């Protein structure tokens, strides 16, 4: 995902802002990391450049 996407993303559950934590990036593209809700603290993983923003109860326990 591109960092500028942060302008419009929010927590799917409480709609509060997210904070980006980057583990791996290639130029402008964030490949691995997480989006952490500034309100509820839930961490949403970014894998292969795609954030998994499913609510926690719909997310896989372990990555496929």
């Amino acid at each position, binding site marked *: 995902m*591109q960092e500028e996407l942060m302008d419009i993303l929010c927590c799917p559950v409480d709609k509060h802002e997210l904070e980006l934590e980057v583990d791996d990036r290639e130029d402008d593209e964030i490949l691995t990391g997480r989006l952490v809700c500034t309100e509820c603290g839930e961490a949403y993983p970014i894998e292969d450049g*795609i954030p998994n923003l499913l609510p926690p109860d*719909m997310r896989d326990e372990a990555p496929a």
Partner: protein
Amino acid sequence: MPAGDGDSVDDHRSQARVREVYDDIADHFAQTREYPWPEVEEFLDDIDGTRGLDVGCGNGRHLEAMADCVDHVIGVDVSRQLLGTATERMAERGWSGALLQSDAAALPIQSGTIDAAVYVATLHHLPTTEQRRASLTDLARVLTEEGRALVSAWSTAHDRFDASADAEEGFDTTVDWTLPSGETVPRYYHIYAPAEFEDDLAASALTVESVRVSSGNCYAEVSG
């Protein structure tokens, strides 16, 4: 996983199961979804703006069409494997968009940021009236003041269903997807009666501009 004879619609009525099904059939499904629907192209004819959103974007065929109308496109889908096919389509055809794995009823997008949205052939996969209405209200939330969206769902008017288009309510069923191997995978659908489609829109925060039935689907043009 092949469906046994004992399978009932109840075994498939959940977002987790719908997600699993589309993860399983993603590659074949995406191959058969080459062209945008004419109803979507018609809607996009009048669209411009900064950001476009496709809820239930699948392989991205409608995102690709939308990328000609707005500056940035964002696709969300519950199935990671389908998002993978959208990534491939972008690379093959030279367009770009943002992809998010997300539930249609819990959009991870800030309020008032989307100028145009399509939510086609996805609403009918949500398992309950409450969730379907919640997804429509969440769509209203993300639209800008001038924002517009096209919503569609399979309807009882479709000729594959032996149901009356005049019924007050639709019904739950499974519709098989047949893989090249011959294996069939049942997908959960709530088939909408047109009157019920209008009821759900009216119960949501969306404002309905127009509604119609076309090619066996209910369509509505809406604003936030």
